[in-house]
């Protein structure tokens, strides 16, 4: 799939933002006044920024308002609805802590659960797509949730907890890469079933339907950069995981350690999200690919 910057930024930032919200709702860190303003500002900036980035992906933005209407069937619609509900639920909680010095804990707890649901719903936009076998597996939501809660923990300064979560995240990410590699062949869709000609013999493309590029090729048959995948996976595993884990679990607790780990982790999140899209093969590619 085409790794469009708008969707990479959307899923990465909003994931981190809602992950941070999940911790803030539990009163972690337990701050009021200006410090509270700072953490809520970051959480709102990341989640709203991510959502705005996703609007850039739309080719006909004027109809965006309708996207809240189909929550009965559409995960994308549910995503918009859940994000708005979560952001609104956190408003009284944030106002209480920032301006009134009170802890409206109930809004926090409900908000935390809603934040996690929002991340889950985002992941389902991709997980539901049978036509992209690499995404269509139960590990995809697990991965999105782990990215959110570990990134969130890192931002709250919960150094040891973050280190522990990131260690798990890294292992699950590696597992997702390995299992994902087998998904396409495991889906049973091949040139034979795509053309219905498989029973007659080996099917090869003789002539494509068009000689120039089109929307389908641009969007769904992205192959550029896949050959660097192994290198990028290694870099991603080091930056999301190994390096931060070493810092967080082996060094004394401190701001510098946390911030260095966070910087590395965020770089890793973007690389792995790029890979998430770039490596995902859509079955429509079978109509085009030789062999």
């Amino acid at each position: 799939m085409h790794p469009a910057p708008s969707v990479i930024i959307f899923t990465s930032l909003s994931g981190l933002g809602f992950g941070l919200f999940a911790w803030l709702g539990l009163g972690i860190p337990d701050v009021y006044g200006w410090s509270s303003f700072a953490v809520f500002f970051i959480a709102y900036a990341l989640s709203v920024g991510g959502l705005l980035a996703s609007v850039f992906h739309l080719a006909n933005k004027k109809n965006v308002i309708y996207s809240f209407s189909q929550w009965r069937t559409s995960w994308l619609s549910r995503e918009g609805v859940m994000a708005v509900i979560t952001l609104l639920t956190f408003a009284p909680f944030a106002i209480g802590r920032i301006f009134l010095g009170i802890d409206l804990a109930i809004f926090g707890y409900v908000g935390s659960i809603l934040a996690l649901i929002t991340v889950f719903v985002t992941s389902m936009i991709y997980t539901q797509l049978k036509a992209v076998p690499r995404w269509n597996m139960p590990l995809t939501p697990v991965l999105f949730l782990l990215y959110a809660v570990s990134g969130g923990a890192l931002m709250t300064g919960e150094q040891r907890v973050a280190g522990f979560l990131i260690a798990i995240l890294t292992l699950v990410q590696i597992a997702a890469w390995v299992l994902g590699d087998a998904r396409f062949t495991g889906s049973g869709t091949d040139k034979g079933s795509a053309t219905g000609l498989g029973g007659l013999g080996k099917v090869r493309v003789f002539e494509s339907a068009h000689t120039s590029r089109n929307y389908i090729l641009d969007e769904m048959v992205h192959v550029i950069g896949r050959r660097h995948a192994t290198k990028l996976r290694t870099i991603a595993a080091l930056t999301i995981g190994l390096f931060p884990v070493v810092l967080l679990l082996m060094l004394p607790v401190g701001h510098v350690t946390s911030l260095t780990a966070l910087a590395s982790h965020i770089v890793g999140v973007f690389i792995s999200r790029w890979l998430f899209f770039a490596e995902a093969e859509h079955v429509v590619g079978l109509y085009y690919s030789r062999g």
Partner: protein
Amino acid sequence: MTQLPAQSKKKLGLVIDLDTCVGCHGCVTSCKGWNTQNYGEPLSDIDAYGADPSGTFLNRVFSYEVEAPNKPAQTVHFPKSCLHCEDAPCVTVCPTGASYKREEDGIVLVNEDRCMGCGLCAWACPYGARELDFMSGIMKKCTLCVDRIYNENIPEEDRVPACVRTCPSNARHFGDLGDPDSDVSKLVAERGGIDLMPEQGTKPVNKYLPPRLKDTLDSAPPKPLESVSEEPKGWLGWLDRALEALPGSNGKAEDK
């Protein structure tokens, strides 16, 4: 509404004959023509006469080569447009309600006044049957020529999809696949019509008729003819070698 109708009794769709399709792309052109001049946003072309042209089409024709061991390879032309799936994943993923499947005849359509151009429906379609128009930013797909098939302003023989009307080899058939007694249903039964990617669970309405089996040779193929040419000898041989040595002859002086 992106909820799929429980079950449409009428299932209008196409039956495409892979045996008779000659790969002329006539249906591609007539589809583009009709759907640019009639309902909805036109199917745009970008840089049509330039170095890097591209455009939106609702129907495209691929060609495949099929080869079984010890058999001659066979070319199969393969038109592909929306299959108007019964379990259409493109419809349920749509967040705006722009994509819908009609209860009365099963046609899958896009309401252009609601589409926000997110592209998720095109991601959900395993067949590549939806293209986002670059110019209008709206998702385009085969309408089964809904503005022809019920259109009482055009002569009756024209009330079929443009691609069906145009096809010079009669490889495209239109009808109700929900009615077991319709001509198209009978054709599918007779010729063993198949679904594309059945494992994707989309339950396509459109069916493809596989190519008929080719003849096989019942005796050993004739031996190739013996070569009758001879290497020139004597004076002619000398001339041949001399000419060969001059610049500009085959194999030499190619290094420009």
